[in-house]
């Protein structure tokens, strides 16, 4: 039972560090680690978070393991990364993370015109805000930096354990 649990945990963590294969429909265009692209794109979407030392990656690990986040939502994050990379290759012939900052913004502007792209950016922004502005216990909101940014004090009592 214990080993099964360990294996399960490994699989769940594995989701975040898993490889994303993107294609043009016929040929494989590249392989990227999910977590690498997420890190870059989240910083592109909200640089303020990095400035405040918000640990979004650690928070995203919680989301990928959360019992109350639907599998379809988790899949959508992953698919979005795949489609984002496909768009990057379509526009500039290299994966998203290999592009310059300004070109990455062009790709984001490109996908925002698609319905999936707008939804995906919307989702990513909401996770970024959860990481920044949730209770620091959830490991994103480093020393309440997100709250301090907006002059927010947090409600009392504060949670003592994570709700997962």
């Amino acid at each position: 039972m214990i080993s099964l649990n360990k294996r399960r945990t490994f699989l769940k963590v594995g989701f975040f560090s898993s490889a994303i294969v993107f294609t043009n429909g016929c040929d494989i265009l590249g392989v990227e680690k999910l977590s690498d692209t997420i890190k870059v794109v989240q910083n592109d979407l909200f640089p303020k978070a990095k400035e405040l030392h918000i640990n979004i990656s650690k928070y995203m690990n919680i989301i990928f393991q959360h019992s109350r986040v639907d599998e379809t939502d988790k899949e959508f994050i992953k698919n979005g990364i795949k489609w984002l990379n496909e768009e990057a290759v379509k526009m500039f012939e290299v994966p998203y993370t290999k592009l310059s900052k300004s070109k990455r913004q062009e790709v984001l502007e490109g996908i925002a015109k698609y319905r999936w792209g707008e939804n995906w950016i919307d989702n990513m922004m909401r996770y970024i805000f959860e990481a920044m502005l949730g209770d620091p216990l959830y490991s994103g909101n480093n020393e309440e930096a997100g709250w301090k940014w907006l002059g927010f004090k947090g409600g009392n009592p504060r949670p003592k354990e994570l709700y997962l």
Partner: protein
Amino acid sequence: MKYDICIVGSGAGGSPIAYELSNAGYSVVVLEKGKNYTEKEFSKDELGVSRRDMFTPPLKEQKHIINEYSQSGEFTRYDGAESGWNFWNGSMVGGSSNLMSGYFHRMKPRDFKLRSSYGKIRGANVVDWAINYEELEPYYEKVERVVGVSGSVVKHKFAEPRSTKSFPYPALQTNGVTKWFDKACLELGFVSIPTPRAVLSQSANKRDACYYSNFCGSYGCASGAKGSARAALLQQCSAEVITDAFVYKLDSKDSKVTGAHYYDENLRSHTISASIFVLSAQAIESSRLLLNSKNKEFPNGLANSSGEVGKNLIFSAGGSGSGRFVFDKLTQTQQTELMQTGLFFNRSLQDWYDYDDGCRKYKGGTIDFLFEHQNIISRVNKELYDEDGNIMWGDKLAKKIEKSLKTSRVLTFEVFNDWLPTDNCNVSVDDKQTDKYGVPVGVINLSSHPHDLEVGEYLAKKAVEVLEEMGAVEIDYSISASPPPNLVAGGCRFGNDATNSVLDKNCKAHDLDNLYVSDASFMPTGGSVPYTWTIYANSFRVADIIKGRLSK
């Protein structure tokens, strides 16, 4: 063991009976589907409470099927697990009363006589209540003392008669902006009413006073000041509460309920015997349990010889709106007042509880004003799109968020008016879909009457006048036919005629000698106020009836 009383559901509908009967020395057991939380366990964790719905069941395990009817009678079917649409409000000891804001208004005498006061409305099944205001008044007063209601009485055209001069607890402290509101109302000739709250302003009844946490609605109260059924009643009595107990069937024989079957968290079945059974699982679930408890004697569902179980489900009609106060238009003192957090807004208007548009008399309603919820993640999420509806990101978005949250604040309002009962608004059970217990899920058929929208619009426009007078910008409102899941009633109407009602005037099933339904299911119409005070009051009334019966 055979209990004197078995109560299904531990919320506002069942707990007054548990409290009264156990204090009178009877053996009482309460079966609650959810878990128990104490004050110590209630934190202000926005991620857990508001983003991940920790107090309601996962929809893949427990869901509803929802059929949304259009005015032409066609409907669209939604599977709750796929659409995310749900009507759960708080599966826990004390139910959703733990999570309410506790805006407490009594129903008014005219609410008990909607049919005879305002006449027939085509397409609506409006009837008068089986009791009148005078019969419920002593229990409204009892709730003020026992559950705890704070406020100050203000004279106005539609003020309901009171047997006591004032509230037992003084009004809670309010934010400075309420002065702007009061002034605006004075200018407009409206009567500003301090909203009574089921929140203790002083420590009493072994509960601590409100500590102005800034996070009241949607959250459990960490001081016990909020008058939840748990803090005010169940924690103050000796009734036995069994948690993780999902009641899936009631048995009956010879017009008597003989047992309540429940599954525990390991899906093991147990049975409770009692002399009297009280059903209070919240309106939708109470009807569902009766319909799922059909037997030889009641082939269409327990207590359903009339065919009325599940019918005439009602919500609160109306909607909400808001206006923003921006620093640019305010003095420095006003800016400070505006940003003061923790204190309540607590203002209501009832000037149009009844109004005439020149053609006919309308039953109107209540408008409650309150600051936008302090949840920081949800406030920031609202900034995600620009004025043209395009999604934003990056530094531009960061600046927008900063400006909005640090130099302005939103005042919101909620309109409450009658949701007229109609044929297509009801509860049934699905013949294929089951929940994690293997029990047929509830089907919620939703339909609203156009009259509700007309009244809601009228009231919202009055609220807008106040916001304009106060100097708010970005004023907006939405009156809609979508039902608020936390304001639900009906399904087991009470009445004097057993052929067209489920319960008698005592809330006892016409068909059964020992079954009472004491949540909001009994209400044939809901009044133009939130329901909780009335649910509590009626449950105390039913408690007296049961006590009288047992003492014989």
